[in-house]
Structure formats: C-alpha cells, structure tokens
C-alpha cells in the first residue's frame, strides 16, 4: 500500500523558490509554513517580505503578504498589526535588512512590545546584491566589500542581534537557532512554532534568529557551507534561548 510520508506544507504556494541551490532560505520557509499550518493560522496570517533575497517571499507563503521598503518591515508590521489585531503578523528579514538599515525600526517595535513574530535570517553576508559585507559578517571573512577580510579596526565587530534584543524589556522571546543539520533543524522548528504561539497568546514581541547559509556568495559548496555554520558561525553566534517568557524590567 502506498502511503504519503512527506508533502509540501499548505503554508507554501506552488511557486518555484527563487533561492540559489544549497541556500537554507528554502528550509526556513518550510519551517515557517509548517508552523502556520500546524497552528492553523494560515488564513489569519499576514506576512511582511523585506528587501534582500527574501524580497520575493510574498510569492511563496500562501497567505496575504506585504512587501516592505528596505529595513522597514517591523514598522510596516506595526501598522498592520495595530490595524488588524486579529491577524497573525510576521516579518521575514535578512541581516542587511534587520541588522543594518532596519535595526532602529526593529528595536522600537520590540520596545513597544508589538505583538509580532520576527524571523531573522543571519547568513553573515548581503546575498541579493552579490556578497557584500553585512553587519553580521565574521572577523576575517572575505566579501566583495571586505576583500581583505573583515577587520575589527575598520569595520567593527559582527553584530549579535539576539544578544541585543534580549536586553529589551518588552521583547518576550528571543532565540538563536540553526538549520545546518537535522537535529538543529528540529530545534529551529520548535522555536519558530513558539514565536507564532506567543503571538496567538498575545504575549508580545518574539524574534527567532536563524543561522543560514549563502554558499554562492561564501564561495563554498552547500555541504561546506553547512560545515562553516557549525565551525565558524556557531562559536561566535551561540545557538540558545536568550529570553523566554516574562518581560523584564
């Protein structure tokens, strides 16, 4: 007897993904879509597509989607959630969008305690524009705008977004996860589910930082890229729950 053992989540459309081979954006999309499906909130969801590789994510999630200006996803999300409090509003943002040009909007949305779910993709590089240095680029990492490697004295240290957001009193849930192997992936799914569950329960601002790969712009094979996450990114960006539950003072 034939049996379906795996199928695409109902939270995704049939649109072909625009991501490069080996990039983990697709996996994170799957996790977000599964969370929407499992929590039965696809029909209540409004997603915000940000600027960067995920700009076309409005084609992929099977719910209402709004494309935001670069960095402004959390301001746009605020406008939507305040106007439609019954909707489940999430943003899906990369590190150029959230950690560089849009860190102000994100911090203030968290500080106001907006009841939002923020999925933050940290791949240590600008993917869409062709591999420039991001605020999250590691020390020594070569990019098209740091051809000699990121230099602490020239470029500062890579920004630790989860650590920053865990200091914000009204952020209720901050966790960093990774999707470089099945064990971590399972954990990432749990975190993303929780970030949406929090919104359903009106708990407030939840942010999940996902360590992600960019094989093309890193100049690596997909397998080597996954290894690079484990060996280079995780030591600097520890995978853990930074904050869970009550607002702090």
């Amino acid at each position: 007897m034939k049996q379906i053992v795996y199928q695409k989540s109902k939270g995704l459309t049939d649109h072909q993904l625009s991501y490069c081979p080996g990039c983990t954006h697709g996996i994170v999309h799957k996790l977000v879509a599964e969370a929407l499906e499992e929590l039965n909130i696809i029909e209540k969801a409004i997603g915000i597509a940000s600027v960067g590789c995920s700009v076309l994510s409005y084609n992929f999630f099977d719910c209402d989607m709004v494309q935001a200006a670069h960095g402004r996803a959390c301001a746009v999300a605020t406008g939507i959630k305040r106007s439609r409090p019954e909707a489940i509003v999430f943003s899906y943002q990369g590190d150029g969008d959230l950690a560089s040009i849009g860190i102000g909007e994100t911090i203030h949305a968290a500080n106001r305690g907006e009841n939002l779910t923020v999925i933050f993709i940290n791949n240590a590089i600008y993917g869409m524009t062709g591999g420039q240095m991001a605020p999250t680029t590691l020390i020594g990492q070569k990019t098209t705008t740091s051809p000699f490697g990121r230099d602490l004295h020239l470029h500062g240290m890579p920004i630790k977004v989860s650590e920053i957001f865990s200091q914000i009193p009204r952020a209720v849930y901050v966790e960093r996860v990774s999707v470089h192997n099945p064990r971590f992936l399972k954990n990432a799914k749990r975190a993303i589910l929780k970030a949406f569950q929090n919104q359903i329960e009106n708990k407030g601002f939840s942010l999940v930082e996902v360590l992600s790969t960019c094989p093309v712009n890193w100049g690596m094979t997909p397998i080597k890229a996954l290894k690079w996450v484990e060996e280079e990114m995780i030591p600097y960006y520890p995978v853990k729950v930074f904050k869970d539950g009550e607002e702090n003072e």
Partner: protein
Amino acid sequence: MKKILMKGNEAIARSAILGGCEAFFGYPITPQNEIPEYLSKYLPEVGKVFVQAESEIASINMVYGAAAAGVRVMTSSSSPGIALMQEGISYLCGAELPCVIVNVMRGGPGLGGIQPSQSDYFQITRGGGNGDYRVLAYAPENLQETVDLMKEAFEIADYYRNPVMIAVDGLIGQMMESVSLDREVKKRVIPEKNWAASGGHTGKERRIVTSLFLDPEKLEEHNLRLAKKYKVMIADEQKYELSNAEEAEFIIVAYGTMARIVRSAIEILKDQGIKVGLLKPLTLWPYPKNAFSKLPKSLKGILVAELSLGQMLDDVKICNEGRFPLSFFGRVGGVLPEPEEIAEALLKFKMEVSR
C-alpha cells in the same frame, strides 16, 4: 451651522476623526505638534489607533502597513519630516495605497526654521522619492477650507488608491479661527478594498501588496497603468478659484496663506483704480492649468506671489506658455509680507509692462 473657535492643528485633527480616520502614526515636529497631541487623546477614545513612531521614516512605513491592511490612515509632519517620508510616499504610490499626509510647512533648507513657509512646493509637486509617481496635493487658504478638505481627503485617497497631501503652512496650523466642523463633504463611490492584505485569504484569493516588478515589461505596464490614473486626476481634480478676473489688468497667482494676503493687496490696488484678479490654485498637483484658458484678454501681466523664492512660478510658466508677461514676488524664511508690499510689487510690474 455651528461655528467654534479652534486652533488650526486641533481643528485638522478633529476633522480627521470626523473624516473616518482609523489610524494615525506620526513623530513630533514643530509646527504641527497639536495634531498628534490631539489625536493621541481622542483617537483611542473612539477605539482607533494612535502610535507615536520613533521617526518619520517609521511613521510613513506604519502608514504603509495600515493602508495595506485596508484601513483609513494618516500621518502629519512638517517640511524636514516630510523630506524623510519621501521614500515611503514613493512606495505608497507604487503599491497604490491610499493615505492622507498633512504637511504643515516651515522654512528650509536643512533645519531651516519653524515659521510659516511655502518653500516645499517642489518637494510636494515633484516629489523627492524615486520613480514616476504623483501625489494629489491640496493647499487650502484658511482653516474652514482645511478642515473640509481634511475630511474629503480620505474619500479622494480611497477613490484613487493614492496618497493625498494637504499642504498648509505653519500659520494655518497655529492660528485660531472660527470653523464649522459639520459641513458635509462630497462622498465618492469607493470600490470595496478587495486588494487589501487584511488577512484571511489564501490560494487564489491571496492578496499581495507590493511595488516590485522585476520584469521590465511588467514594470512598464505598471507605470503606464499608474500614468493612466494620474491622467484622470489631471482631468478631474484640478481645483482653483479665479476671482475679480473679468476685465482685470493683472492677475496675481497665489495659494495658501499668501492668497489670503493677496486678497488684501487686491483691495489696496482697487482703491487706486487698478483692476487685479486672483488666481488661487487649491490643488498644487494636479496644477490647475485649466484656469489659464479663462484668463481675460484685457490682461497685461501675471504676478506670482509665494512664500518661497519662486517654485510655483515654474508651473505658471508652463501654463502661461509665454502669453503674458510674468513677474514674481516672494518672501521667505518665515517672513510674511504686508499686503502693501505685494501692491507695491504689482505697481512696479505695471510700470515695467507699460514701458
């Protein structure tokens, strides 16, 4: 009709609530602060949304979000704040989202000053954002006109799915005048917002709000569709007042507070036996080009008066098409002219054209 004495900014805010404003997002800046102050108190009272954003950039993007979700939304700011909103305004136009933006203008450039000015005519009518886009812009002259427009602006914005700007100067915002807030405004037939990403849609019903079109042919198609809409606005939305024009020797073109001062100047000139008419554009965009075909044959010249160094002057030049001699009078920096100065400028112009 009952009239009450109200400060300009507060009357604008009250009128916005009466016009059906469901959400306000803004950031403090002088001389418009009474608008958010008033709304922070009275919008929540009627179960509507008020958020003080962390910047004008955030404000306009919250407006974008609320508009995308299908509610009647507005913001207010003043010149430097409106400068920061330009990117958002371009996105709103690109994604065809309706909203109302109140601009209580002050002097520039840079931080400039906080006194009344009209030096943002270019910013308002040409726009500082990227791309081929247009914003409907109204420049009322007194508080009554402003509060009536404030209500109607939501209708117009929804009708066209486009931002509408109400551009007043600091004088209108700060001055107290008697107004009637219960005047009926023209209602438009507004189609259901079946484009709004308000949640609850999947599959074929799914709604996407975006201004992104990566395929050049698709983007051109989108641009041409927008242009068609702007053409309708140009045909149907030009608003102006042309008064005392019959047999007039001169016409003074002025809008907003300047139009009000010009009215007094025209009286002074009338006493001296000089017949001067007023052309007051109410819409800055679309510019009331139609008015120029109604100018009398008796005309010897057009004087443009602005609280800028000659910005609307460009549009007058375009509409005049070289027919009548032109002259310009302007005061800037927040300095308001006496009517006598304008009368004097016209007398000087009269000397020049009769030479």
